[in-house]
């Protein structure tokens, strides 16, 4: 069953998803996973928030991945997000120069996460956004959402996804400006103010 013969397209069926579980912590998070922006880059933004469940309780064991373009809207093709030390096997962190566009961060004991990345540029017909993938114990299949940054109402109004949503739901995808380049983006998995999650076809 688990040897797949690509010459028989009917046998090429998706491998099901499973939860990340509670014990990924020594495997997936890495040093500097949340520091995506090159050091001292003027277009650096901080995005942060809480991940909460259906009772409003924060999740101390959620894992967030962010993926986004550079400020010109170009998608990075460079590796090195989790540079390694060949001597110790440990993580060196990013080199502070190249922008890989991808980061990974675990919520802390308070259910809070943050990442520093570059302000994304626009691509195609969409307003600028960061793509987000949420994993957690209890989530049998991960969840996709997007972080849109405020500031350009015309671009947000023209965005194909946002323009199809009613206001209250739409607002769950737009981060709140806090000043000093910081933006708050909470992820509510269930219940009041539930974040809009996406599927792709």
């Amino acid at each position: 069953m688990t040897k797949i013969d690509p010459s028989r397209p009917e046998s090429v069926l998706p491998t099901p998803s499973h939860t990340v579980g509670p014990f990924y912590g020594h495997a997936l998070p890495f040093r500097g996973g949340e520091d995506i922006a090159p050091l001292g880059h003027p277009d650096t933004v901080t995005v942060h928030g809480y991940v909460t469940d259906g009772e409003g309780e924060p999740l101390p064991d959620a894992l967030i991945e962010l993926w986004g373009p550079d400020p010109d809207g170009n998608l990075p093709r460079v590796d090195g997000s989790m540079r390694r030390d060949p001597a110790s096997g440990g993580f060196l962190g990013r080199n502070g120069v190249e922008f890989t566009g991808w980061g990974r961060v675990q919520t802390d004991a308070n259910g809070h996460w943050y990442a520093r990345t570059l302000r994304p540029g626009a691509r195609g017909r969409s307003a600028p956004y960061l793509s987000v993938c949420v994993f957690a114990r209890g989530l049998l299949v991960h969840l996709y959402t997007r972080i849109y940054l405020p500031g350009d109402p015309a671009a947000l109004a023209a965005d194909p996804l946002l323009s199809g949503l009613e206001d209250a739901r739409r607002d769950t995808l737009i981060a709140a400006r806090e000043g000093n380049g910081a933006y708050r983006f909470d992820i509510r998995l269930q219940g009041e103010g539930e974040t809009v999650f996406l599927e792709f076809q």
Partner: protein
Amino acid sequence: MTLTQHDIDQEIAAQHAAYEKRLADGGPVEHQPRRDYAPYRPSVLRHPKQPPVTIDAGKDPELVELSSPAFGERDITEIDNDLTRQHDGEPIGERITVSGRLLDRDGRPVRGQLVEVWQANSAGRYAHQREQHDAPLDPNFTGVGRTLTDGEGRYRFTTIQPGPYPWRQHVNAWRPAHIHFSLFGTAFTQRLVTQMYFPSDPLFPYDPIIQSVTDDAARQRLVATYDHSLSVPEFSMGYHWDIVLDGPHATWIEEGR
């Protein structure tokens, strides 16, 4: 009230029957678990109640989600795919070799992408602070591995057969032995985290996590095959496990990879 295996068994059976009925009524084959699968209790407060908003990726090739982060030689070390060589001594347990191919829905190999694994040791214990199971830790086994797929989409790990472990969701709840896998495709929409199981595990019927995949054929795709040709003489038992990533992807990204 104490939650028993019998309670969970009944819920699993009811979920399976409900899926069979949906199929009989003309519903689609469900390759993925439902996020609200209640026999797995942690899902109850953590699944969205609103249906996901569908994005037609075919309409906009510029979507961020149609591309994927890159990984390279800088992101792994030479022994990352050999979990038996990461400490001074030999870990305890049965050595195994796990290998297979990473494919997309068109059967094409996903090349040069990151495969990450983590697992319990041979006694069923994770090297994780919050782990409560009092089976012994193995100072020579962390249970974490990484590799990049090769030009044919192939990956290969040398590790130790993980043990089953109790997880306290209900009385006498045991997880079948498994290895956690994290995978990237050529598009972020293909991102996958899953678990690989071993053939004929007697715990399968009791475990609400594997049973969350209610389609029998889909569930079988999580189980590796013993492969004698992968067994390394005088060293390890071989298991073959191919992985197919779901989700739309842009074909043009394949060029140059």
